[in-house]
């Protein structure tokens, strides 16, 4: 049993108080699953008693658990309350789950991103549950005048066995809510878990399948107006002037004006990445009317000059220069090819790589490239805002409310405490909604028109003015000696505008002579987090190269990786290797077993890939079949070590999704630019993976573990790219170096005809 000091989390425990029941909408978790039996049905309590920020209990035993983090599909709204419920000791079927609003004084980390929700919530949520349970026990002990140690809890009940006394939590909740928060609490032993590790259905499942309003785009209040945004047509352009009068005569149009997201002198923070700080808003009575006016809108645009500003990156002041110019993908490619030839910034150097390469019997060099990607969340960017003279309510899709609060406060000229951000369920995030300037746009519109407003981007706006996954390139070199053994390894990787390199990850630590270099090319195209940032490219490049190397050395690809990991485990090279070689090898061994690696089904071509990111280890084996000249993914086997799995079936679902996402982006994902304009603006141009291209079968196997949970939303994504590339090599005999693979495959298939 672990004892934790609750003082560490004191900030999240407000002075406890008995709260009157509010008029909230309730969603019992069992409503999402099967129909409740009569004894499982609890009425609404007359009164709620708050035990801490996360938990309140009604006098009738109803339990409300607040899920702190924004929900974008990773199912934290189910899994985080499961952790609370486990330590609180309640019947999951009688739990009501509520989305918490953004409330930084009460909750520690209301951020969905970096696969950290469960990892960083693990101890705070368990502590919150255990603390509430301890307070309920103390209340019962006080009532019964017995030693708290003699009281046990089960399924929302407290029992004193010696005297035969038993009550449900609600009966002592009012007293418990007035007691001191204990300084220390004991957490459950892992082997006594009854909720964590069992599959629970999505608490919002029923609402989703019946079309209930849950997303910001569904929100509506009395007197609400609708708004569309017009952006400059290309990166590197800005507004010169626009024509308002003709739009004002269009049906339902109320106003057209520009909004500026940043006031003079405002210092941007790290997530203040926005494409255009000045945009035009069209406001009217319905979505369709404002979209019609948007179509008719006429403006003059001009090239924007270079801009320079300082960005506050969590205390570090970073100078940022946004270059002028209208960029082209062809120029990007040419520039990247130049940088490959130059020396880069050395990030890590072990041994004497230069000498080792000079002495090598054979040097293998390969370069891998990938394009910009758009996030393409299914719910386009949108936001509701209601800004009054002294306060603002913002309801929108955001992964990171904390990172937009300063921006909102300066733009609206309101103190932060007068701005309430409410967290909507998001129709996907994938990193895009870590940048929440849509909230500032909606808020400024509402402030200007003095009415509540819902602002909606079209798909073209969403795809065309994104905060994209950067384009990257990585060049790998390996030196082999006369015995065909690997002696030196060199990676030089860069991108526009950031490098994808993680210099201390595998295979660093496994090779005596190792060099990692980076380069970066500035750009005015905005980039940001995209599911497993940087890893989502570098894993594909590295794991493709290791496959080529294994073949060159005449080794089985899994065996070759295991040999390197053995070296890193027994006699590591260098310092700061930020992976555990044993756990890394563990997932490779598990996927080898589960995929029956050495006995593939007839007619399939197999690729393997493994990667470590977001504190988790994943290995994947992908099988594809050629149907004529078209590759079809048949099976994907994944082995995952992410510590304890809270909600196994939901975890598998997310793993399956990440694999499908990876296959889609490997084959089809691509955004290009011509004169600063994205060449794809909607799904008729930007190819997304669809039902027919999904694999026939995906198996996600989790390593049985008692380690604390680590990331899951991202780690299954990066390895997919090389698993596809390595299988395609087996299928076609041709190594593909440029993502997406589909254009090259079509070219190859035309050559065969």
């Amino acid at each position, binding site marked *: 049993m672990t004892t934790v000091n609750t003082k560490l989390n004191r900030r999240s425990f407000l002075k406890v108080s008995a709260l009157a029941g509010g008029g909230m909408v309730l969603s019992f978790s069992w409503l999402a699953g099967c129909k409740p039996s009569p004894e499982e049905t609890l009425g609404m309590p007359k009164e709620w008693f708050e035990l801490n920020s996360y938990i309140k209990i009604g006098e009738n035993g109803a339990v409300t658990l607040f899920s702190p983090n924004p929900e*974008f*599909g990773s199912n934290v709204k189910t899994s985080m309350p499961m952790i609370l419920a486990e330590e609180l000791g309640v019947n999951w079927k009688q739990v009501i789950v509520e989305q918490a609003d953004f409330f930084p004084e009460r909750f520690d980390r209301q951020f969905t991103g970096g696969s950290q929700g469960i990892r960083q919530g693990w101890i705070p949520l368990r502590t919150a549950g255990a603390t509430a349970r301890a307070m309920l026990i103390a209340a019962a002990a006080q009532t019964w005048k017995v030693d708290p140690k003699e009281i046990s809890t089960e399924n929302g009940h407290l029992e004193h066995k010696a005297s035969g006394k038993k009550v449900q939590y609600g009966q002592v909740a009012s007293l418990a809510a007035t007691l001191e928060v204990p300084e220390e609490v004991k957490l459950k032993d892992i082997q006594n878990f009854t909720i964590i590790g069992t599959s629970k259905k999505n608490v919002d499942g029923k609402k989703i399948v*019946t079309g209930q309003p*849950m997303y910001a785009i569904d929100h*509506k209040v009395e007197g609400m107006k609708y708004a569309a945004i017009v952006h400059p047509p290309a990166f590197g352009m800005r507004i010169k002037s626009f024509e308002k009068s003709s739009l004002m005569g269009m049906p339902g149009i109320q106003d057209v004006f520009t909004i500026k997201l940043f006031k003079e002198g405002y210092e941007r923070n790290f997530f203040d990445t926005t494409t255009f700080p000045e945009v035009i808003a069209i406001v009217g009575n319905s979505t*369709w009317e404002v979209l019609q006016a948007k179509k008719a809108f006429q403006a003059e645009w001009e090239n924007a000059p270079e801009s320079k500003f300082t960005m506050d990156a969590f205390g570090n002041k970073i100078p940022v220069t946004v270059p002028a110019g209208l960029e082209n993908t062809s120029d990007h490619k040419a520039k990247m090819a130049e940088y490959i030839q130059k020396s880069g910034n050395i990030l890590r150097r072990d041994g004497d790589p230069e000498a080792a390469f000079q002495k090598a019997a054979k040097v293998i060099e390969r370069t891998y490239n990938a394009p910009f990607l758009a996030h393409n*969340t*299914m719910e386009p960017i949108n936001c509701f805002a209601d800004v009054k003279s002294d306060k603002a309510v913002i309801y929108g899709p955001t992964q990171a409310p904390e990172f937009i609060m300063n921006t909102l406060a300066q733009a609206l000229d309101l103190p932060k405490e007068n701005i309430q951000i409410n967290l909507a369920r998001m129709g996907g995030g994938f990193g895009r909604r870590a940048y929440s300037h849509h909230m500032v746009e909606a808020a400024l519109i509402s402030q200007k028109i003095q009415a509540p407003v819902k602002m909606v981007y079209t798909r073209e706006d969403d795809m065309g003015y994104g905060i994209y996954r950067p384009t990257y390139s990585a060049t790998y070199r390996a030196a082999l000696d006369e015995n065909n053994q690997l002696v030196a390894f060199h990676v030089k990787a860069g991108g526009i505008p950031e490098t994808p390199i993680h210099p201390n990850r595998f295979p660093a630590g496994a090779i005596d002579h190792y060099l990692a270099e980076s380069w970066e090319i500035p750009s005015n195209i905005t980039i940001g987090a995209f599911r497993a940032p940087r890893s989502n490219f570098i894993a594909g490049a590295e794991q493709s190269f290791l496959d080529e190397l294994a073949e060159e050395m005449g080794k089985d690809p899994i065996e070759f990786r295991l040999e390197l990991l053995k070296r890193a485990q027994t006699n590591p090279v260098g310092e700061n290797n930020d992976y555990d070689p044993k756990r890394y090898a563990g997932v490779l061994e598990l996927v080898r077993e589960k995929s029956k690696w050495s006995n593939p089904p007839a007619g399939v071509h197999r690729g393997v890939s493994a990667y470590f990111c977001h504190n988790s280890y994943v290995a994947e084996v992908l099988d594809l079949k050629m149907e004529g000249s078209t590759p079809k993914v048949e099976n994907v086997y994944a082995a995952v070590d992410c510590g304890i799995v809270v909600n196994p079936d939901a975890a598998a679902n997310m793993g399956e999704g990440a694999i499908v996402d990876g296959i889609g982006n490997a084959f089809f994902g691509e955004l290009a630019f011509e004169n600063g304009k994205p060449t794809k603006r909607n799904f008729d141009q930007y190819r997304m993976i669809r*039902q027919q291209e*999904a694999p026939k079968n995906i198996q996600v196997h989790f390593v049985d573990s008692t380690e604390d949970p680590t990331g899951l939303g991202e780690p299954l994504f990066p390895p997919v790219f090389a698993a596809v590339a390595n299988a395609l090599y087996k299928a076609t005999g041709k190594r593909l170096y440029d993502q997406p693979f589909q254009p090259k495959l079509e070219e190859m298939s035309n050559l065969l005809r």
Partner: protein
Amino acid sequence: MAIFNLTINGKSKQVDVDPNTPMLWVLRDHLDLVGTKFGCGIAQCGACTIHLDGTAVRSCSLPVSSAEGAEITTIEGLSENGDHPLQEAWIEHDVPQCGYCQAGQIMTAAALLNDNPKPSDEEIENALNGNICRCGTYLRIKAAVKTAAQKL
């Protein structure tokens, strides 16, 4: 603007809108039926799928003027208590991640099962190929359609 008399989920509704207004926005902005989702506006993603006389159509590209006189069904009206076999199967397989596309997926699948109660895997894949799921829940969608088909 013009008055349109519509039959939606078995009920008569009247709206006064521009005749070119797509049903998607009539449902969402004027009738507060927001289960039908906006995804692309050009009939490429399927998030806005509804039934027009039992056939799956993309409401973002269906002007209100073409919908008069037809029986329109949205996700809110697919079943009385959210217990259509597809809705139940979706929960059984815990299909949704973000959930945004799922109403469209279910409406497309419901139209498929109306026409073809025992579809093959290939027929399911073909029917649902027009519905994008960015979260990649395609395998669970297919499994849920098969489960529902068995119960029909």
